[in-house]
Structure formats: structure tokens, C-alpha cells
């Protein structure tokens, strides 16, 4: 949970520095986020209870004695009435305590997520950069080369990556680059040797290796990051390429672009400073919407690449019927998405002087 702090701090800074209207806007948005999170965790809570199977049979198997089974059920509070369990869980969410995990050493979920969230961030942030970077760059390129070979090629590429399942692309890339060519590691975040030498403080392995000056570990971490971040980033890049392309094509026909050309402004400046900057506004809107897809993609990518993040944790705990862990992870995901889309809306007002809150 420590890692929501930078985003929250940034928002706080905007909150303090911003205008009265902006402050009211942020408060309203946060207030609107609460019912959304409530509905989401409620749905997850009840769906989990409807699902066949329970934590005892999935961890101890069918041969566990009735006595053991009842003991565990009772100790987890699963024998309480549903409504009691529900409000107890809501209390956990509100206090950001999230309770204890159902399996293993029954560690606090906050601790378990705290170890895994950095891994997920280290996957989705570079992936978002890859997606957005290729999207803006190639989208603009395709728009400028409209109806030429490069444009057709990039459009074809976007459709292909967009329609390709992440796990399939991940497996393909792994087969080619890890198995056949041997250029990249098969899975994981860091190799075993580097792992033993790396001192962990933030669990963001890139940050940890930089602050401890462990350059061989950094190299290993980056090496492991290549395939997973590319897999996730490339799949999302298709949307951004198409979106950027169509918006740049539109802005290139705007009067202000034509009148900039009539003032002798260089074509490169016209394309990037006039057309792309204006085209960014709708693209930024979609970034907020894509965060949810990014997280869904992270679940798949982490599973394919054995990446010890929140996504793989979620999958593991769903099969173990660890209700507490699943509910809590989904709640964290929901809050994360809400936070990012709020941040995007605030960025919007920085980008476009016409938007005032």
C-alpha cells in the first residue's frame, strides 16, 4: 500500500496548489468514487460466495476430516451469517486493514499485497510507457504518411496486436526470444544469484538495485522486464496508434494548422506542436479508460511470465478460494483505477487551457 503514496501525494499537491474550483472538483470525484468501489467489492463478495468450492476443500482436499474442516471454517469466520461477514469485510476496506489471508500463515493481506504491488507497478508502468510511446510516435507517423505504405502497415499492425490475446502473444514472444533465440529469461523478475545479493527496501527491484548501487542486479532486473512489459505494452499500443492517427489526421486539417503553415511555421513544428498536441487531448481521456484494461492485461501477463505481482496473486487466490485475498485485491484494483482516472482528469485541465474546473 506504500506505493499508492506517490500518486496520492501528487494529487495532494495539486489539491493544495490548485484553485478552489479544482479542489471542489477533486473532492466531488473522490466522493463519487466511494459508491463505485462499494458496489464493486459487494458484487465480488457475493459472487465469491456463490462460486462452488471453498477454501478447505481447495487447500486440504476432499479427505480432510469433518472436525478439521469445521475448525478451519470457524477460525476464518466463515460460519458467521453472510450479512455479518459482509459488514466485517466492508469495515476492513474502510479502515484499509483488509484482514488476514485464509491460507498459509494467514498473513495480513496488506503485507502480502505490499510485496506484490511493486512487481505489478514495475510491469504496468513500463508497459504503459511502451504503449503510449509507440502509440503517439507511430500514430503521428501514420497520420503524416496517410494512405501510404507505412500507414497501411501500421494500421494492420494495430489491428493484429489489438485482436491478439495477451497470453498468446506472451507465449509466442517467449517461444521465439527465450526458447529459440535464448536472448531473454523465460520468467520471473530477477535471476537467482542477483536475487541473493539484492537488498530489498521498496520491492521495486529497479529502484532497489539503483539505491544499493548493485548494477549487476539492475541489469538482471531490466533483462527480465523486457518481454513482459513488451507483451503488455504492445497489445495496448494498437489502440493508441489508431487513436493518435485519427486525431492527428483530424487536427492536421484544422484551420489553425493551415494558418500556421501560412505563417511559414516549419512542418515538423506544425505536426508535433500544433497537430499532435491538440490530438493528445482525446488520447489522454482514453488513457484513463485503458488503465482498467492495463490491469486486466497485467493479470494475464503475470500468469504467463510467472511474474510475482498482484495479478498472479489474484489468480492463485481465486483457485484457493481465499475470499479475503480476492475481495481485497479487487478493492485495491478498483481504487487504483479510480485514482488514475481522477489524475487523468486533473492532467486534462493542465493540458487544455479551455478546461476549467
Amino acid at each position: 500500500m506504500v506505493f499508492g503514496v506517490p500518486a496520492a501525494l501528487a494529487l495532494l499537491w495539486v489539491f493544495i496548489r490548485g484553485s478552489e474550483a479544482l479542489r471542489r472538483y477533486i473532492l466531488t470525484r473522490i466522493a463519487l468514487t466511494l459508491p463505485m468501489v462499494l458496489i464493486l467489492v459487494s458484487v465480488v463478495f457475493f459472487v465469491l460466495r456463490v462460486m462452488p468450492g471453498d477454501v478447505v476443500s481447495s487447500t486440504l482436499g476432499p479427505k480432510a476430516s469433518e472436525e478439521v474442516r469445521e475448525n478451519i471454517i470457524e477460525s476464518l469466520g466463515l460460519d458467521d451469517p453472510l450479512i455479518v461477514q459482509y459488514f466485517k469485510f466492508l469495515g476492513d476496506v474502510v479502515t484499509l486493514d483488509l484482514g488476514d489471508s485464509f491460507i498459509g500463515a494467514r498473513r495480513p493481506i496488506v503485507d502480502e499485497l505490499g510485496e506484490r504491488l511493486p512487481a505489478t507497478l514495475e510491469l504496468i508502468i513500463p508497459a504503459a510507457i511502451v504503449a503510449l510511446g509507440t502509440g503517439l510516435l507511430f500514430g503521428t507517423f501514420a497520420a503524416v504518411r496517410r494512405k501510404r505504405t507505412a500507414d497501411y502497415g501500421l494500421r494492420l499492425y494495430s489491428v493484429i496486436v489489438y485482436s491478439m490475446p495477451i497470453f498468446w502473444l506472451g507465449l509466442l514472444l517467449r517461444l521465439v526470444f527465450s526458447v529459440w533465440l535464448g536472448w531473454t529469461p523465460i520468467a520471473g523478475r530477477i535471476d537467482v544469484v542477483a536475487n541473493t545479493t539484492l537488498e530489498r527496501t521498496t520491492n521495486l527491484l529497479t529502484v532497489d538495485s539503483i539505491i544499493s548501487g548493485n548494477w549487476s542486479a539492475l541489469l538482471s532486473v531490466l533483462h527480465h522486464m523486457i518481454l513482459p512489459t513488451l507483451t503488455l505494452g504492445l497489445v495496448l499500443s494498437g489502440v493508441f496508434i489508431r487513436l493518435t492517427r485519427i486525431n492527428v489526421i483530424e487536427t492536421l486539417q484544422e484551420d489553425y494548422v493551415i494558418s500556421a503553415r501560412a505563417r511559414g511555421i516549419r512542418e515538423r513544428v506544425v505536426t508535433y506542436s500544433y497537430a499532435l498536441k491538440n490530438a493528445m487531448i482525446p488520447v489522454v481521456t482514453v488513457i484513463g479508460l485503458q488503465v482498467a484494461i492495463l490491469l486486466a492485461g497485467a493479470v494475464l501477463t503475470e500468469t504467463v511470465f510467472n511474474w510475482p505481482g498482484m495479478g498472479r496473486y489474484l489468480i492463485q487466490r481465486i483457485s484457493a478460494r481465499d475470499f479475503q485475498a480476492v475481495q481485497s485485491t479487487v478493492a485495491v484494483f478498483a481504487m487504483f483505477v479510480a485514482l488514475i482516472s481522477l489524475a487523468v482528469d486533473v492532467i486534462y485541465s493542465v493540458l487544455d487551457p479551455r478546461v476549467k474546473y
Partner: protein
Amino acid sequence: MTQDAIAADRSSVATGDVLYSIRDLSVEYGTRAGEVAAVDRVSLDIRKGEILGLVGESGCGKSTLGKAMMRMISPPGRITQGELWFAGEDLMTVSEAQMREIRGARLGMVFQDPMTSLNPLSKIVDHLTETITTHEPSVSEAAARDRAEQLIGRLGLRVERIDDYPHQFSGGMRQRIMIALALALRADLVIADEPTTALDVIVEAQFLDLLRELRAEFDLTIIMITHNIGVVAEVADRVAVMYAGRMAELGSVDEVFLDTKHPYGQGLLRAVPNIELDGSDLYQMEGAPPNLLHTPSGCPFHPRCPHVMPICSEREPAFAEVTPGHRASCWLFQEHDGEGER
């Protein structure tokens, strides 16, 4: 036009009287149905210091002509023939990089819709300083800002508003800003494409006054492209009337408006509503502008012309002088040897 005539006209460019000379210019747009000649063999001299009104119906090619003068025709359009002489240089022969140096520096353009012609994400001052430093890289940002402030002040806007964004200004103010941009480098010639269409009449009158003042102050030559005959009558020295991509008539404002030669021009003038002529119905010209894919043979106006003669559908009249300085392309004023033979 004969080669001799072109040569004679070109020599007049050298005399310094003519600032911009369009020679036999054609612009075509490729469409699915075929090539459309939006501008068809137009020749026109713009004299230094004048305000020339370029009038005609929508789609007659006047805006295309203005864009072609900046060499800003973009695909599917292209200039298929002709010469563009500006201050002794044929713009058709200069490179795109040289052309870019001329655009904005010596040739300015003001567009129809001031609401959409400024970058919504840039401050006014950035528009101006960017234009200045693009053409004069040696000018510092601070010096460019000084010049921008002077210009904005000269055009009657409050200097402290220079750091505002376009959406914070009214239409009339934005059109002043567009003028400031065209004047940022002291352009010799400003092509104003329907600059007052988006303005109400009071702002329009203020804007036209400003243009007249600026002409004297900045030694400007202005081409005013418009379909508003009233605007032309108010500010222009000379008027060029276009029809179906061709020149129909050219002369001083008095000549064209009081002694109209071309039947199209006569029809246009009769169709202007006049508050003093009450009771009578407003005149309406028969027919519609021709489809430029199938321009009528001979004189393009002949299907709508009340004075049509047999020759009009057979041969195209020359754009010839009727009286010195007053040209019209109409067989009524030209010798022709017979009734419609080839």
C-alpha cells in the same frame, strides 16, 4: 494570351508598379468524377499599395486563387500551369523551403474563421513570437515579445492580454490577432480570405477601418477575397470579379460598380438588397453556378446570360480591355467575325 502579351506584362512587373502578378494560372482538383478546374487560366496584376477586392459566388475559385498565391494548394489539388511573380521572383520556381520563408514574412494570410484559426493550446504571445523567431532566428525571445506587445497594442488590444489564450477573446479581437500575425514581419502583401464573414456588421466596420489605417501605416497591399459586395465597395480600390474559375471583370471600384460591363457583374449588383429601393422585388439571377466538371462551352456564363449571342456558346471571349484598365471577358465588347462559326 500570346507570348508577346505575357512578355509585355512581365516587363511591367519590373517597373515596380505591380507587386504580385498572376500569369495564366490554373488549379485543378482531382475528384473521382474527373479533374475540376477551380481556377482556369487566370491572369491578374496586383499593384503595390492597393486594396483589391476579389468577388464571386461560392465555389467560383476565389479562395483557391488566394491559396494558390501562397502556393498552399494541397492534394488532391495542384497548380497545373501558370506563373506567380512576386516582387520580381516567380514563386512557382522557388523551393518549398524558400517558399516557407516567404510565407508569413512577406506574404501574409488572414482566414475566414478567426474562432478556429488560432491554436487553442497556445497563448497569443506564443503565436506571435513563434512567427517572429521562425523567420528571424537571431531575434531573442524577449525582443520578439516586445515586438509582439507593440503590435497587439497597435491593433487596439490591451497589452496585458497577450498572455491569454485564444478562447478568451471575441471574434473581432481574434481577427485583429490574425492581422497582427500577418503583420508580425511587416508583410508586403496580405491576402484576406473572407475576413469579415464571421463578424457582425459593427465589428466588421471597425475591422475595415483598421485595415485602411494599417494599409497607410504599414505600406500594405491587400487582397480582400469576399462574396460581400458591400465590403468591397467600402474598402477596395479595384475589383476583380470571378466566375466559374475565370476572370469575368476587372477595374476600379467605380468602373466595376457604376459602369459594369460583364452581364454577370450586372446581375450580381442588381441582386444586392438596397434599403432605398422599397416596394420592388429583389432581383434574382436565373440558374446556378456551373458544375466545374462540365463547364459550359465558350463563355461559362452563357447559359445564364440575358444577352447571350450565338458565338457565346462557341468560343471563349478574351479577358480584354474595354477601356484602359477596365477588363471584361464578354463578347459584347469584343470584335467577332460572325455568328457562331468556328
